[in-house]
């Protein structure tokens, strides 16, 4: 309906292969980014930043990472939380042990460590598939949960077991206020989303998807399973690790291993399923959905309760949340296995074909 594609012809492959080949899409996405940079800060209040926007951004980043592994390369992982933890604790150690260590560098180094961990725990994927692999990744989850709890060195021997970072600053500018943190995260997310997109539309991306869709055919055209899978694990856990570091440094400030427990892993898995497997865009949808839903429920349910004259306790809200998540997962797996992203692209197709149905 809004699309006017006449005259948008491509005279070079570069132009034809760009991320948003259609002008209207490019405009749309630019407006969106502009809004995120200019509009949001004008509208959002502190609560919105702390409770929704910042977690949303960081979780989207983690979801992108996970989506590369699960959605693009088809390797299931239930250990995402662990890799976030690795990122967070590694970054922490670089930050506190090396004095004068810039935050960004610390965070990226956190990602690097997470990459290593990812590759190590990815090795089984060369021998084992599907369910077996899922369990193998759980090993990572439990191992690291334990490690960061029991091995004091990681927590810089802090007595309580919780670690905390203070006075972050970037090029001398302190990142303390919610706005600063927001921009800090936004920067990371935008950059990594772009890099990730480039990867998945590049030839490594095709190798991943080939492994996912038909691994025998993939190997016959010369794709090495080792390289394809491990690179997916590496890239995925790097991004996840960075997200983990951000989660710790920017969102929580001080945290303990529980912040990255198995529920976090599942939460992220849900994000990519609901958002859309194999879609960068979907990762954002999923993150938005899952980080907003609880807040939505905590607002709506009590209201509903009042209507029917029942008081709805926090416990019940928490349980409803569980049920809704569970139900949605099943729903999406049955009805739209490609998640919100697919719904989005269907809608877009309809717009382009408007008023015709096909």
């Amino acid at each position, binding site marked *: 309906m809004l699309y006017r594609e006449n005259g948008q012809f491509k005279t070079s492959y*570069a132009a034809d292969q760009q991320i948003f080949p259609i002008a209207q899409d490019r405009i749309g996405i630019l407006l969106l980014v502009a809004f995120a940079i200019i509009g949001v800060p004008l509208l959002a209040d502190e609560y919105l930043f702390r409770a929704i926007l910042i977690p949303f951004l960081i979780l989207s980043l983690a979801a992108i990472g996970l989506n590369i592994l699960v959605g693009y390369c088809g390797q299931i992982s239930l250990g995402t939380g662990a890799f976030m933890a690795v990122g967070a604790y590694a970054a922490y150690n670089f930050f506190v042990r090396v004095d004068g260590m810039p935050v960004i560098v610390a965070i990226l180094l956190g990602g690097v460590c997470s990459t290593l961990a990812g590759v190590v725990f990815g090795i089984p994927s060369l021998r084992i598939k599907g369910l077996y692999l899922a369990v193998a990744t759980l090993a990572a989850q439990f191992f690291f949960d334990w490690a960061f709890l029991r091995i004091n060195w990681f927590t810089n021997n802090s007595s309580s077991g919780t670690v905390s970072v203070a006075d972050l600053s970037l090029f001398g500018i302190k990142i303390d206020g919610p706005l600063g943190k927001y921009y800090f995260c936004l920067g990371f997310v935008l950059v990594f989303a772009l890099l990730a997109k480039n990867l998945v539309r590049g030839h490594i991306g095709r*190798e991943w998807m080939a492994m996912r869709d038909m691994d025998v055919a993939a190997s016959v*055209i010369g794709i090495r399973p080792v390289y394809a899978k491990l690179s997916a694990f590496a890239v995925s856990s790097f991004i996840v690790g960075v997200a983990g570091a951000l989660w710790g440094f920017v969102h929580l400030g001080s945290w303990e291993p529980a912040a990255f427990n198995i529920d976090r892993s599942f939460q992220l898995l849900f994000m990519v399923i609901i958002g859309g497997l194999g879609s960068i865009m979907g990762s954002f949808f999923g993150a938005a959905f899952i980080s907003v839903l609880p807040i939505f429920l905590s607002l709506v349910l009590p209201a509903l309760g009042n209507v029917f004259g029942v008081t709805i306790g926090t416990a019940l809200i928490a349980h409803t949340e569980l049920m809704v998540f569970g139900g949605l997962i099943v729903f999406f797996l049955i009805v739209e296995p490609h998640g919100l992203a697919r719904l989005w692209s269907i809608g877009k197709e309809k717009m382009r074909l408007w008023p015709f149905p096909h």
Partner: protein
Amino acid sequence: MAEHSNPSTPERGGNKVILDVNNISLSFGGVKALTDISFNVREHEIRAIIGPNGAGKSSMLNCINGVYTPQQGSITFRGQTFSHMSPRQVAEMGVARTFQNLALFKGMNVIDNIMSGRNLKMKSNLFLQALRIGPAAREEAEHREFVEHIIDFLEIQAFRKTPVGRLPYGLQKRVDLGRALAMEPSVLLLDEPMAGMNVEEKQDMCRFVLEVNEEFATTIVLIEHDMSVVMDISDRVVVLDYGKKIGDGTPDEVRQNPEVISAYLGTSH
């Protein structure tokens, strides 16, 4: 018998053997799929492997391109002899292959499926790809151009960006061929390229196979059920039955071969 007869193929490239299969035997947990199979393929010829269902034709291809590892026997490719090769090695040596039941990458569109056949030739590292600058960007464009030539060759311009899942069967088969061609193979293994096609689709596919063989001087090893097709386009034919080789020679020689007649041509296919 036929095994030792070396029918010469005057019209196509000399008698130089490019691929030589020696005494291959393969079995899955005791079940014998192939027993002591030997045959050779000459530079630039079209070599057909025929046989009733379950004769082990596909297993033969899978041995050649390293998907299965035969328990016995060896394969000589361009003078080098191997008893085991990884699919990767085989691909690097310029052997490509299409699949009997479509093995396309359903999550991708036509271009990307064919592009994936170029992966061996794409060298830029992860970081360049992530930034998509310099070599990485150039590479994408160059190989896209090559792929476009294949798309043009297979006459599927109208479907470039269609997800392969949405294509009719016949076109999917073309894309499968396209992906193999993208590897610029010197030997092309085709596993029943015309299975389940209607008459026009078969004619097209025949045309493409012959054109590939001529225009790119590609050696072709072909499994096919449709006898008429086989007899038309192939230079020499190997006949398998229950994992054993029962005939080898020019289409005419094979037609004469009594064993073949009883085992295959007799039965209605």
